[in-house]
Every structure is written in structure tokens, then in C-alpha cells.
């Protein structure tokens, strides 16, 4: 097995607001190995962005704070790393791109200025040389007329082009890990596919690990090796993309898969899981998914299910997996006495 680049253990990131403490990330563990693309999926509000920002140590403080847990990156714990050291890692060893390509670039500086800045923060390089490198990076991510674009402002580019610029910026120092938080959510379908292709290509060519965050299982299916499903601040299921898509265990994952648009059955009404993600609270009783779960039974409302290990790198947070069963009870056998 190849080396682990990122290993998050029992991460707790909480927000301390006027309305009380919000455990937005509540004991999350996940890992990414060299050259691997790992997807984190879950509806909006499940704590995916907070997890990824925790890795970068970019949680706005106040109100947010990493309360406990460790984030091992290439053998060091980022939670314990000083800001000074962290600055050397950000953009250099771990790069990040965000959901909104429209607002993620500073509107008042040229593409070139922002790219050159990214290059020169971590490399001793003259302006001219950095500019040459910037043009090369733009060409590398498939931007036509890179020589002109370098002097243009973000508002002169389309969303897809801006996201390519963001990727070029992220690639500027050849990071070991790229964290992409909903990189294609704001883009239309064709552009989305192009951006995913580009990311896969960079992953292969540079053997760069990617942590891809999305609320869209379709995106996961497209390029991820493994999947971590999150719900209300916790990991609820983990496995290879194949396992998750073909043989989901946890009812929430099943719901996500059911709500995928089916290419074969056209005009069918799209399924969506009823209800919404609850805001995580400190003293939640029972399974967090219980109010929306069609399999829920008495115990689900009284106890919180732990994360059951049901195979190699395969977990599920559901009482139905307690006996490590491969097959979940079929629909009419739902009520199983604990």
C-alpha cells in the first residue's frame, strides 16, 4: 500500500456562537494516500468545508476552533503546527481550490499578478521568470492565449476559465495534496466535466493526491478512488467508490444514491431524501439521521450508532451493521431488535 499523505484522526472542530457550541466536525477520521483521489460527499451543512478548512488551519477564529484530534500530514500534526510553519505548507505542500471561481480571485489584480504572487511566496524567483512560469502554468491547465490572459482581470474570464486559473495557482508549487472544495458546483455540466478531466490528468501526471469535496455523488463516481460520506459533522460510511455505489450500507448513503439522476430512466421524477441536515449540537441523542431514515427503529432514537468497521477501509455508522453483516436487511425486515 502506498504512503499516506493525509491522516485525519478524531477531528473535532467546533464553533462557539451566541446560540451555543456547534460541533460542526464531530470526530471525523479519514485519510488520503499518495496519488489517490478521495471524495468527501454529503449534503450541504454536513461539515465538509469545515473539515477541509481545518486541514489548512483556516477555520475563522473566533468563532471556530479545532477542539481536539490530529491532522497528520507527511508525519507532522498540522493541529500542533505553528502559523509560521503552516504558511510554508499552505499553497506549497497543500493547495486548495474553492467552490466559487467568481469570487475566489481578487477582482482588482490581474491573473498574472495573483499567479506570480503564488509562485513567489514559496520560490525565490525573479518577476520575469515567475511570469514565464505563470504563462506555462496557464497553458498547462488548458487556457488558450495564456500570454494575453495573464494580463487580464478575473471579470474578463468565464467561470470555467477562472476555475482553471485557480487550479493553475494551486499547481504552482507542485503540492503533495490538493484539496478541492466543491470545485465544479458553480459550473455548468460540460465545463464541470472538463474541470474534472483536468484534475484527473494532473493527479495522474504529477501523482498528486486529491481530497475532493462535493455534495454530488455524480462527481464522485466520475473521478474518485474512495469515498467518505459525511452527515451532520460525522463520517457515516466509507469505502471504495465501487463499493459505495454498488453496495451502500448506511441508509443515508442509499438515499444519496437513490437521488442520483438515472440516465436510463428518463423523465422519472427525481428522488430526494425528505427533510434537511440537522444543525449539529453538543448533546445529540440517537442516530443523527434517524428523523429522516426509513429504516429507523427504537434504538436509533435512544443511542448513537458508532462507526462499525465492516471490511478493509470499509465503515458504516448504522446499527444495522452491528453484526458486521454484508447485506442490510431488506425493506420489510426493517425492524431488527437490538
Amino acid at each position, binding site marked *: 500500500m502506498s504512503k499516506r499523505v493525509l491522516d485525519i484522526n478524531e477531528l473535532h472542530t467546533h464553533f462557539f456562537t451566541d446560540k451555543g457550541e456547534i460541533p460542526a466536525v464531530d470526530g471525523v477520521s479519514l485519510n488520503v494516500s499518495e496519488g489517490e483521489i478521495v471524495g468527501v460527499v454529503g449534503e450541504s451543512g454536513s461539515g465538509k468545508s469545515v473539515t477541509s478548512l481545518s486541514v489548512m488551519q*483556516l477555520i475563522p477564529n473566533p468563532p471556530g476552533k479545532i477542539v481536539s484530534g490530529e491532522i497528520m500530514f507527511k508525519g507532522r500534526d498540522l493541529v500542533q503546527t505553528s502559523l509560521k510553519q503552516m504558511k510554508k*505548507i*499552505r499553497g506549497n505542500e497543500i493547495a486548495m481550490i474553492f467552490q*466559487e471561481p467568481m*469570487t475566489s480571485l*481578487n477582482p*482588482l489584480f490581474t491573473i498574472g499578478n495573483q499567479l506570480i504572487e503564488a509562485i513567489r511566496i514559496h520560490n525565490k524567483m525573479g518577476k520575469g521568470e515567475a511570469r514565464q512560469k505563470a504563462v506555462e502554468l496557464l497553458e498547462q491547465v488548458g487556457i488558450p492565449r495564456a500570454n494575453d490572459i495573464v494580463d487580464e*482581470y478575473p471579470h474578463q474570464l468565464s467561470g470555467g476559465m477562472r476555475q482553471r486559473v485557480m487550479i493553475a495557482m494551486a499547481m504552482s508549487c507542485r503540492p503533495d495534496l490538493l484539496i478541492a472544495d466543491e470545485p465544479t458546483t458553480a459550473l455548468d455540466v460540460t465545463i464541470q466535466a472538463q474541470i474534472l478531466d483536468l484534475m484527473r490528468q494532473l493527479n495522474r501526471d504529477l501523482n498528486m493526491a486529491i481530497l475532493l469535496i462535493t455534495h454530488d455523488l455524480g462527481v464522485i463516481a466520475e473521478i474518485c478512488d474512495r469515498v467518505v460520506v459525511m452527515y451532520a459533522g460525522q463520517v457515516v460510511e466509507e469505502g471504495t467508490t465501487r463499493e459505495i455505489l454498488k453496495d451502500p450500507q448506511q441508509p443515508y448513503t442509499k438515499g444519496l444514491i437513490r437521488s442520483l439522476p438515472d440516465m436510463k430512466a428518463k423523465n422519472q421524477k427525481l428522488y430526494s431524501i425528505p427533510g434537511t441536515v440537522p444543525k449539529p449540537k453538543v448533546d445529540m441523542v440517537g442516530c443523527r439521521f434517524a428523523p429522516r431514515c426509513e429504516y429507523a427503529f427504537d434504538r436509533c432514537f435512544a443511542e448513537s450508532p458508532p462507526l462499525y468497521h465492516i471490511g478493509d477501509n470499509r465503515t458504516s455508522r448504522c446499527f444495522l451493521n452491528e453484526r458486521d453483516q454484508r447485506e442490510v436487511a431488506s425493506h420489510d425486515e426493517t425492524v431488527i431488535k437490538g
Partner: protein
Amino acid sequence: MLIPVLFGMTLITFSIVHLIPGNPAQVILGETATQEAINNLEENMGLNKPYFVQYGIYIQDLLQGDLGTSLRSKTDIAQEIWPYIAATLELTFFAMIFAVFVGTNAGIISAWKQNSLFDYVAMLIALVGVSMPIFWLGLMEQWVFSQELGWLPATGRENSRDPIEPITYFYVLDALLQLDFSRAITVLKHLILPSIALGTIPMAIIARMTRSSMLEVMKSDYIRTVEAKGAGQFIIVYKHALKNAVIPVLTVIGLQTGVLLGGAILTETIFGWPGIGRYVFDAISFRDYPVIQSGILVVAFFFVIINLIVDLLYTYIDPRIKY
């Protein structure tokens, strides 16, 4: 933009004379004037012609740089007004330098170190500053720094026993042009107290505006992007955040400059500053209408110029804005 606004201003200044109830000539000359004197004045000023003809003449004169004749001093206003304008512009300039420099920096650091002791103290000062009566501040300054400590002169633009040779009537500039550094310093010393008195309110407004604008900008996605690149706080705050945050502050700076230009009478009076405010104020008590008209028009003119400069700065800072 520039032309219609100035045109509108001439309408207003023109109307001033004609909005006064009663016969303008009568008002100008006072109750005891004889009918003959009134007729003469009407003849001289063209007051017996129809309004639109009078206005036409007024505009024609203005276009030729003719602001009319002062009733009091009987001299050409265009000739005697410049030293007053220069005095006001110079004072406004230094007051705004003080206001912008202190205000923006206080705002930036307050936002950067939000909820720190600096933030609390700076914002308390800003709060007091906005509500500070200028005359009180001015008098306190004079009492402390002039009377008690004797560090700075309390009134005037220069040492009147050792006057400067005026060229542009911007005294600092004039002294520097003549390479007369000791006089330049004297003039600067005279500028300090009135500049602070005049600049305090805009300084406080700019500080608060900068702070809130910075806090807003610091939350934006592109700041997070810069942080994710591994940039240091200085680049984040002074390059990326400041340039964005300064855009709304610029509007305030422009407006406040205009306010100072027009509203400096109090400061000019306290500090014996021979500026346009004093010039117009004195004219009022002599019913010197041509001077009042011209003074207002000149202030309006510079107000428009400042707005023009602000607009140009916008396009310079923000590539998305095009005219």
C-alpha cells in the same frame, strides 16, 4: 457630468440675488438709499434687464473669468479671491492628509486586530471625534499647544512680521519654490493646529468606515484564497484587503473634502485663517452679493473637481469600472 453640475450651480448662485425678497438693489444699498442711487445701481448691475438676459450676461462674464466686482472693495473679485481660495485649499489639503493617513491606518489596524485594546481605544476616539465640536477642539488645541506649551502658533498662516513672498499663494509650496526651508517650516507649524481641528471629524469618519469596510472584505473568498496560498498577514491586509476596502472609503474621503472646503468658516475664524469661508462670511455682513455669489461658485467648482478626481481614482483602482 462636470458641465451640467457647474451649470446648475450657476443657476443657484444667480438665483441667490434674485431670491432675496424685495428689490436687490434696495437690499444691497439698504433702507435709506435714495431712488436715484437704486436706479444707478440697477443700471450698473444690469438689474433692470429681463432675468434670462441677466443670466446670459452672468454666464458670459463667468466664461471670460469675470466674477464681477466687489461692492465693498470695488476690486475685481477674480483678482482678489485667489489668495483666499489658496489658503482654504492648503488648509483642506493638510487637514485631509491628516484625516486620511490617521483614519485609514487606525481603521486598518482596528480591523486587523479586531477586539484588541487598540481597536477599542481607536474606535472610542473615533466615536468622540465624530461628535467633537470643532470650536471646542480648536480652542483646546490653542490653549494647550500654544498658550501653555508654546510649541505652535495659535493663529494665522505665517509669521506676519516676516511674511513670505507669495507666488502661488500656497505658502508651503511658495516657500519650497524659493528654497526657503525655515519659512516652509514656519508655515507648516501654522498649519498643524487648524489641520487637526478641521481634520478630526473626517478622520473619525474615515477610521470607522475603513474598519467596517476592511472587516467586510476580510471575510471574502479571495482573501481566503490568498491565505490558502500561504501569504503573510502583511500581503493579505495591505495588498489584497486594503485595495478592495478603500473603494467605499474613497467616496467618504471625497465627500468629506467637499464638506471641509465649504464648511471651514468656524475653523478659519478660530485660527484667524484668511480663507474663502472668512471671505464670504465677511461679505455677508456687508451684503456684498457678488462676492457671496463668487465664493459659493468657487467652492462648488472645487467640490465638483474633487468628485471628478474621486471618479478617476475609482477607474484607476477598479478595472471593472469603465466610463
